[in-house]
């Protein structure tokens, strides 16, 4: 049971609405994100198959390769960030447990 003071805090922290265009912005960004991921996956497979067949470089291939590398590099960086985040948090907790005993 909350006392009167806590009820006041609850009222002060009543939920707020984001701006009226928030929902539309997020839906638009989500669509672009999905499209970019599909394009990245398509480019990745197209490049992998072409490389396995040892296709020689031409101007169109060069463009596709660079676009693929950009997308692949961003994806690799994001995955690295996730991996290091998980690892660092776990190590911090282990370290604090060990130091706290």
């Amino acid at each position: 049971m909350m006392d009167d003071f806590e009820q006041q805090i609850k009222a002060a922290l009543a939920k707020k609405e984001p701006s009226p265009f928030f929902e539309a912005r997020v839906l638009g960004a989500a669509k672009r994100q999905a499209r970019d991921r599909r394009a990245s996956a398509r480019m990745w497979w197209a490049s992998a198959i072409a490389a396995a067949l040892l296709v020689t470089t031409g101007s169109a291939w060069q463009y596709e390769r660079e676009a693929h590398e950009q997308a692949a590099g961003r994806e690799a960086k994001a995955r690295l960030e996730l991996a290091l985040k998980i690892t660092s948090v776990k190590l911090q907790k282990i370290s604090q447990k060990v130091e706290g005993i």
Partner: protein
Amino acid sequence: MEDQVENSEPRTFASVLRAQQSMVFSIAYHFLRDRSAAEEVAQDVFLQLHRRFDDLKSDMHISFWLRKVASHRSIDYARKRKLQPSVGLDDAPPPSVDDQPRDHFLHRRLQSLIGSLPEKPRMVMVLRYQEDLMPEEIASLLDMPVRTVKSHLQRSLAMMREKIDRSMGDVR
């Protein structure tokens, strides 16, 4: 207690966004006290949800996941941008004469005091009083022991009561 998508509506990303945007935005807003920063964090949370949407199996799981990610993202954002200088519980400045709150400014004063808390106690307070979560749920969301959550709550409430009492008399 749980915010749920209406039963009549199939669970799509758009329907979850519509149902939960207020909750996610409010966690970020009450923590960061900056509307545009809160929208930026909330958008990131929902874009992350969009990437993971097929992995989340139930409304309850989605709510838990959104609260967890919104909390962590808000804390990360604050640390990165240093929007809110972290002030120790004993260090928050006393209200000046000009800040003498009247009844209708009490909420603003409470929001300001919560905003002056260090990051972890601040998020604990937001989750407790905005989301009505119990200490065990907050502990699970923030990956901290339950006793730490309770300690944060006790100390934060004590500090806030004392400061409010000093400035406007007994409001309890």
